[in-house]
Each structure stands twice: as structure tokens, then as C-alpha cells.
């Protein structure tokens, strides 16, 4: 059995761990609030853009590759957004799992897959298995802060590759923020512009009496300008959602860790006290029996 000193040391170390996890939880809570505010602030732009876009796409018969696709679906690009850091429960693992599943599905269907990893963790986890598929990885987007410029730089990069014919379709995998306890891993088709989602939104837009717009210079010109920007907006939105999800997941994970550490401290303290009393009792018996022997 462990000696009293061992137990004391053990309790001390678990207490330190608890301090760290509870501090991390509080930091995550503060960051979560900031991330949510940022996500909130970005919503009006994304909503307006989407409404305009679906309105336009519904009435346009344009065959722009961003809208109609390249006409083939040979190469798929998966854009995986993960966190740069761990210690956030199953957050990264879930995203990576989804990316792996999708890669395998596509490969089984005989397609070629390319991976674009945003965030350190995704690239790290997939390096061994699909190292040769990873064409690019970017990290440290949240240092010092996530901004639209960074998202649009990624989008420009993706669009340049698309223009060069590097892939035919792109899907974005990210975690949609539901609450601090639940984040939903989502696949979103980025290129070509997802048609189903747009048909729904289009129906709404038609009900809206604003739908009879005049377009300057023309519908197709605006559409051609709107589509690439929409990629940037979607990437930005995904990154914001991801940031909020990451902090939410970390907060929950650290809350659990703090609670578990507390439980462990209680158990160890109980064990410590019991051993201490046992030692005292033993000594007493020794003294008493020693005295009796005389």
C-alpha cells in the first residue's frame, strides 16, 4: 500500500491539475463568449448575401463553373477545419473522423481526393493515413484574432486552385455550434454552389415582395461577382462556427476534468485519512501490548 507521503503528494498533484483545468475552463468560457459575439456580428452580411445569391441563382440560367460545376466530378477537395490545439474533448477527433469517412467513401467510388487542412490538428491526425493527399495546410488563424481577411485569403487560394482545374467539387467540413455541450459536424458543399439549400431559400425569397429587383449591370455579371465572394463568406462563417464550437467543447471537457479531479481528491483524502488512522491504531496496539508484556 502507498505510504502516507505518497498519498499526500498524489493529492497535491491532483489539486494542481484541478487548478489548471478550472482555469482553462474559465478561459474557454471567456473565449466562447467572444467567438459567439463575432459569429453574431457576421450573420447579417452572410444572410443578406445568401438571400441575394439564391434570388439570383433561382432566376439565372448561367453556366458559371462555380454554380453549375465543371461538368465532371473526378476530383474532390475536402476542406477540413479543425482547431490548432487539443484538450477540447472529442472536437478534433470527430471532425477528423468525418473527413476520413468522406475520403474513404469517395475513394471507394473511384474518385480522387485532395485534402486542404485548416488548423494544426486535422493535418496531424491525417498525415499518416492520407499524407500524400494533403495539398495544403494552414494554421494559427486565431492569432491574434480570426478576421475576414484571413478567411478570404483561404477562399482566394481555393478559388485559384479551382480555376486551375485542380478539383471539380469542394466540400467544407466544420463543426456547427449548437451549444457548449453539442457541436454538430457538418459537411457543406462549397463548390459548386449547393443547389438544394438554395432552392428552399429561393422559394422564401419569391414570397418576399422584394424579389422583383432590377439588376445593375446585369444579373449574370452580379452573379459572377457574388459567387466567389460567397465562398469567402462561407469559409469565414465556418471558421467562426468552428471557433465557437472549439471553445464550447473545451469548456465542457475542462468542466468534466475539473469535476473528475475533485472526485479523485475526495477519494484520495478518504484513503489518506483511513491509512493515517490505521497507522495510529497500529501504534497504539503496539504500545498497549508492549506495556502488557511487562
Amino acid at each position: 500500500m502507498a505510504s502516507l507521503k505518497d498519498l499526500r503528494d498524489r493529492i497535491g498533484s491532483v489539486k494542481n491539475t484541478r487548478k489548471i483545468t478550472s482555469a482553462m475552463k474559465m478561459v474557454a468560457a471567456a473565449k466562447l463568449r467572444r467567438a459567439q459575439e463575432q459569429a453574431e456580428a457576421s450573420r447579417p452580411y452572410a444572410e443578406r448575401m445568401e438571400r441575394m445569391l439564391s434570388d439570383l441563382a433561382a432566376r439565372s440560367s448561367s453556366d458559371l463553373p462555380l454554380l453549375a460545376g465543371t461538368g465532371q466530378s473526378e476530383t474532390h477537395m475536402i476542406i477540413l477545419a479543425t482547431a490548432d490545439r487539443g484538450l477540447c474533448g472529442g472536437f478534433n477527433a470527430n471532425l477528423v473522423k468525418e473527413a476520413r469517412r468522406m475520403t474513404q467513401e469517395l475513394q471507394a467510388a473511384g474518385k480522387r481526393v485532395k485534402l486542404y487542412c485548416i488548423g494544426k490538428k486535422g493535418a496531424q491526425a491525417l498525415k499518416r493515413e492520407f499524407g500524400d493527399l494533403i495539398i495544403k495546410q494552414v494554421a494559427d488563424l486565431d492569432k491574434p484574432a480570426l478576421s475576414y481577411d484571413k478567411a478570404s485569403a483561404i477562399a482566394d487560394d481555393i478559388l485559384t486552385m479551382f480555376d486551375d482545374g485542380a478539383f471539380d467539387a469542394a466540400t467544407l467540413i466544420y463543426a456547427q455550434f449548437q451549444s457548449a455541450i453539442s457541436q454538430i459536424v457538418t459537411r457543406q458543399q462549397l463548390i459548386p454552389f449547393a443547389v438544394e439549400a438554395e432552392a428552399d431559400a429561393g422559394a422564401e425569397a419569391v414570397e418576399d415582395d422584394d424579389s422583383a429587383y432590377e439588376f445593375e449591370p446585369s444579373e449574370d455579371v452580379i452573379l459572377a461577382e457574388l459567387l466567389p465572394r460567397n465562398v469567402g463568406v462561407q469559409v469565414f462563417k465556418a471558421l467562426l462556427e468552428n471557433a465557437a464550437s472549439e471553445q464550447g467543447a473545451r469548456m465542457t471537457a475542462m468542466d468534466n476534468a475539473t469535476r473528475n479531479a475533485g472526485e479523485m481528491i475526495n477519494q484520495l483524502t478518504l484513503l489518506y485519512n483511513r491509512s493515517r488512522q490505521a497507522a495510529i491504531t497500529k501504534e497504539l496496539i503496539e504500545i498497549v501490548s508492549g506495556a502488557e508484556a511487562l
Partner: protein
Amino acid sequence: MALTFELVTPEASAATINATMVVVPGAEGDMGVLEDHAPTVSSLRPGVVSVNGTDGGDTGYFVAGGFAEITGERCVILAESATALSDLTAEAAQAAMTEAKAALDTATSEGEKNAAERKLAIAEAMVEAVAG
């Protein structure tokens, strides 16, 4: 009566103002928007959006391109970046200009060149906005 002017960027709603008139730098020329304007969507070139507020104050914003969504009672500008004209300095505009020119000189691929040209157009409009 007035129309509501909203300036929205991806990161935030930059401004909401009750305005009597908004002048928008449309792709095909500047466009004055009054109340009860026909619903219009227009793309914007880099330039200044000027707003005549109902309270008599005039405000100007420099936008680096974007879109305007106009209805009878609202004028919404979607811009990737917007700066209040009062925050825009001649030095900043010149710096953007030099940077864009440098980018154009070093551009090798077609894509880089296009990006640099776009930057240059924005910088030129910026310099003009500061001057005028």
C-alpha cells in the same frame, strides 16, 4: 420621411443611419438613392458612399467594392471592407498605392496579376476619395 441606410461588412454591421439620400458608387456610375427607389441590386466599384442623414449630418464611407441592395425603404451596402471617410488618411492611401504597385511588379502568375490590379484600382479610388 427617410430611408434606412445600412452598411454591413462580414465582421460587423458598420453603420445604420436614417438618411434622406445616399449616393452609391455603382458599377455603371454613381447613383443617388432616395426614398421609394425601385428595388435594385447593383455591384459597386471602389469608391465613396455618401449618406445625407435626416439630422442634417453628412457621412462618407470608403468601400472597396461590394453590393448594394436597394428597396423602397432601405439601402443596404454589403462591402468586404468599409472605412469611415474621416478615418482615411492620405498616408494610408498612398501606402496602399505603393503596396499595390509593388505587388503588380512582382506578380508572376495570371491570378496574382489580377489580384494586384484589383488592389491598385482600390488604392487609386482611395487616393481619389481622400483628395476629393
